[in-house]
């Protein structure tokens, strides 16, 4: 298409080998992604979200404390608007609750977040759990 039009008899007959290499890469990528999606649609995991929340670290943060966590979705579906709740328990008594929302947690993926507390979580029993989500 960069050929000038007055030379219309001169058709571009062939391309250098490296260009065909790139074309082959293109073919592999197009076919590969289509087949990957078909595989996901047919044999893919469609189980509901299975959420695991793990404490990464507990740090002092200004006037309070910050609990950094990592949440992993081991299920086959995406959880949207996933709410994570952290509670500090003193025996059976709930002394403080904090919560946050993870916008999207795709299947077999992880996201990180943090919860602020005014009491030191290291002095109490810290529980983190996912409380709910919606389907995207």
């Amino acid at each position, binding site marked *: 298409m960069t050929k000038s039009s007055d030379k*219309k008899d001169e058709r571009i007959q*062939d391309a250098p080998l490296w260009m065909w290499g790139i074309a082959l890469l293109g073919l592999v990528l197009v076919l590969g992604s289509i087949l990957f999606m078909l595989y996901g649609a047919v044999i893919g995991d469609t189980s509901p979200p299975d959420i695991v929340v793990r404490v990464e670290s507990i740090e002092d943060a200004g006037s309070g404390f910050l609990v950094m966590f990592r949440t992993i979705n081991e299920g086959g579906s995406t959880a949207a608007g996933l709410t994570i709740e952290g509670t500090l328990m003193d025996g059976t008594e709930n002394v403080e609750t904090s919560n946050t929302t993870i916008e999207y947690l795709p299947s077999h993926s992880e996201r990180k977040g943090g919860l602020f507390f005014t009491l030191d979580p290291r002095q109490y029993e810290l529980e983190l759990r996912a409380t709910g989500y919606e389907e995207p």
Partner: protein
Amino acid sequence: MLRSGKSKKQHLHESFFVEKTNQSDMVNKSNNRHKHHTEQQTSDHNFAKDLAYDFGGAILFSFPLLMTMEMWWLGFYMDRLRLALFLFWAFAIVLALSYLEGGEETFKIEVLDALVACATGYTVATVMLFLLGIIKPGMSLDEIIGKIALHAIPCSIGAILARRQLEAEETKKEARRREGYHAKLFLMGVGAIFLAFQLAPTEEIILIGYMMTEVHAALLVLVSLCMMQAFLASIERRPKVPIFSAGFFWNVFLRYTIVGYAVALLLSFYVLWTFGRVDGIAALDIVKASVVLGFPAALGAATARLIL
């Protein structure tokens, strides 16, 4: 012919009309216009330059979608079967555009161009998504491939359109291919799907549909049709045929406007369905959402031959 300060679109537009009135004249002018190109050209076709154009086009056409958060999310949560189907149609569009944009090429080279455009599209999508921090460690393979594959669609279409956009030289054969009625309808469809694709991932399309009453929707259909008619009448204008005659009006309206709008509406619905935006929504709201998305799609369809 090419005056400084004249926009690219005007330039394309003008060359289109000139080509209508006198094709050989247009070719001469086109040659003069690109004299510096032809003089620089060696006997070998410059494939490296084509590749550079592909990269330019891929970035130029795709960055609004690369920077749309709904697109990142759709990459992992949209229905896999619908994504596979969408990827297939996208490749078919790239292949057909390669044929329509291909001036003096053999069929083999047209297929090569399409595949190279796809390779460029996937590369640009991958690099940009990494660069913007949208793909990170800790994400599953499904999420990463989903995001790249979805973003590769506008990138690949951008890449194949690039050479025409960045180097507006239309050869006789290319002009002949683009002149056919079916080719024109196809280009209208590409314009429609491209603009619909830019907006369909956003929440706003459905939201606007909810906010509009049936009267609003009917008026929007009317405005979309008027807008298409105005653009298409100016594109289809022939010398010696008065542009404000009833015959010309109905000719354009029945042959292009109404058909183009039907294509735009159907493609709007298809894109909304692909992104799962119409799942579990009442039929009336689906129609309204399609009409809302049909507005940009109609604009894309009507102006497709100017911008594609």
